[in-house]
């Protein structure tokens, strides 16, 4: 129960009940739209168009929406594009950032701070700042409308935050481990690979979840750098469907598309939410 004034038990109960009620009401506010979407995705489009009220349940389970979205709505292609771009970016950004953060978090040398600040400065760049020059750079490098182009952009954009978090993580690992391993004749690389990297696992998982959610859901870069219909990522394909009002003909398929985009992020969050909240909370307290 929340902090309540000591008084007659009845008023305490009422207060406790009201507090709980507010929690449940907000739970409904959060969950109901999602449930409504799920229900709409298994409802025949005609049923939606003719219904006058948002409170009715679907009359029949109509799973064909997903088949339609997947094939005719091109969501199978969008899904593959999203998976490839997200996976490629995550591998590249994690590899590059882990190596850099290891050096910046553990080695003492004159340029350490300046290089760290050079990376952190990127956290203050809004995407819009580099958008146009980046467009013409990609054009010259023949990377417009390619997986690689989008992967490189996502990698660059995610590097500052990832290096920031991982440098902090590596710098807290005990240095005795490094010295002991070095005395045992471990090469510098072996110290990194066999000792430090496994210890940094929780930090790596946390930043990877953040990067996954950021990249999987990203819209603006995809909108600017992908104009080829076949290369659209899920958010781009979905937004395009909604913006061009193509759904006027088949609403059920659009809802199925929304569910297809939403579900992987929800699954990742559910499996790994412990790392996500812990990472957020230690970050908030450390500052």
């Amino acid at each position, binding site marked *: 129960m929340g902090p309540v004034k000591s008084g007659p038990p009845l008023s305490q109960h009422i207060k406790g009940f009201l507090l709980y009620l507010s929690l449940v009401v907000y739970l409904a506010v959060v969950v109901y739209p999602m449930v409504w979407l799920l229900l709409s995705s298994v409802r025949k489009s005609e049923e939606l168009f003719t219904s006058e009220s948002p409170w009715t349940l679907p009359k029949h389970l109509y799973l064909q929406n997903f088949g339609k979205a997947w094939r005719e709505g091109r969501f199978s292609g969008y899904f593959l594009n999203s998976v490839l771009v997200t996976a490629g970016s995550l591998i590249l950004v994690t590899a590059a950032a882990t*190596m*850099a953060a290891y050096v910046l978090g553990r080695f003492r040398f004159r340029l350490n701070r300046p290089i760290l600040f050079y990376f952190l400065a990127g956290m203050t760049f809004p995407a*819009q*700042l580099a958008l146009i*020059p980046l467009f013409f750079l990609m054009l010259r490098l023949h990377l417009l409308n390619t997986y690689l182009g989008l992967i490189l952009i996502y990698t660059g954009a995610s590097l500052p935050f990832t290096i920031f978090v991982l440098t902090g993580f590596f710098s807290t690992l005990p240095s005795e481990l490094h010295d002991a391993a070095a005395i045992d004749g471990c090469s510098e690389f072996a110290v990194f690979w066999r000792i430090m990297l496994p210890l940094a696992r929780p930090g790596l998982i946390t930043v990877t979840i953040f990067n996954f959610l950021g990249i999987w859901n990203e819209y603006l870069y995809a909108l600017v750098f992908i104009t080829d219909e076949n290369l659209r990522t899920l958010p781009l394909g979905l937004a395009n469907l909604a913006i061009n009002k193509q759904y006027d003909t088949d609403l059920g398929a659009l809802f199925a598309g*929304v569910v297809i985009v939403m579900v992987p992020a929800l699954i990742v969050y559910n499996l790994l939410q412990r790392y996500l909240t812990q990472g957020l909370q230690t970050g908030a*307290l450390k*500052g």
Partner: protein
Amino acid sequence: MLRARQQRLLGFLFLLPALVLYTLFVVYPAIQAFSISLSLWSGYTPEKEFVGLENYRLVLQDSVFWGAIKNNLVLIAIPGVLTLALALYFASTLAHNIKGAQIFRVAYFFPNVMSVVVVAIMWSFIYHPKWGIFNGILRLVGLGHFTRAWLAQDTLIPAIFAPSIWMGVGFYLVLYLAAIQQIPQELFDAAKVDGASGWRIFRHITWPMVWPVNRIAAVFLVLGGLKAFDFIWVFSYGYPALRNHTMATWMYQKTITEYDMGYGTALSVVMFVLVFVASIITFRVASQKREWDQ
């Protein structure tokens, strides 16, 4: 000695990929933005005409730009304050061993892991004039005459308040919860024994302890709000009315739609300066926080 050389080599090789990728795809284009902003350029021709600070003069005289700043500020302030108020209320409620606290916390965070595009599409149906939930609720509570097409240009900006709050509460809740759980439970118990009211406990124990989170949260909200793009874009089908632009949508329209690269890039530089100033405040805030963290 050999060891030191080995370390230097590894340090160099390990820094290289990140430095190259970051310099080429983030810093180099960002610097180029400054030179493009000093020119008149359609993007079609290789040559740019140097016009000095002309684009910046035009930005400052542009009524759409000032309207956009106003929209950015409105989108920071109104949903921001409401988001934090709700997050703090739920955090202080959930901090006290409530049954199912874990479920509430996890579920409230859900909207935050969804793409803004998904949330925008979801809410465009919640706002649907005929079978949307929003008008459904209005009719249910007898306010049927207020029902309307909420995503029409007249109410486009206010219509963004609810989905922003809906997305943000869970995120800030987690931050507040971390701060409140740092407060020793005995403090609350002692206050209760002394007969302090719920409000007084909140005012004198909880509020001072969550103040640092307020400052961090304010910075997140400001940075996010200055870059606002996705909701307006999807809600208006890519065509916001001139009075409904934010800096980001106006920049997109001037460059990608109207090919006025110099002007649009000047706009993005102005955005950067505003975001940068706000970020400096972040780092200030973060360093001030140490005293509280011990």
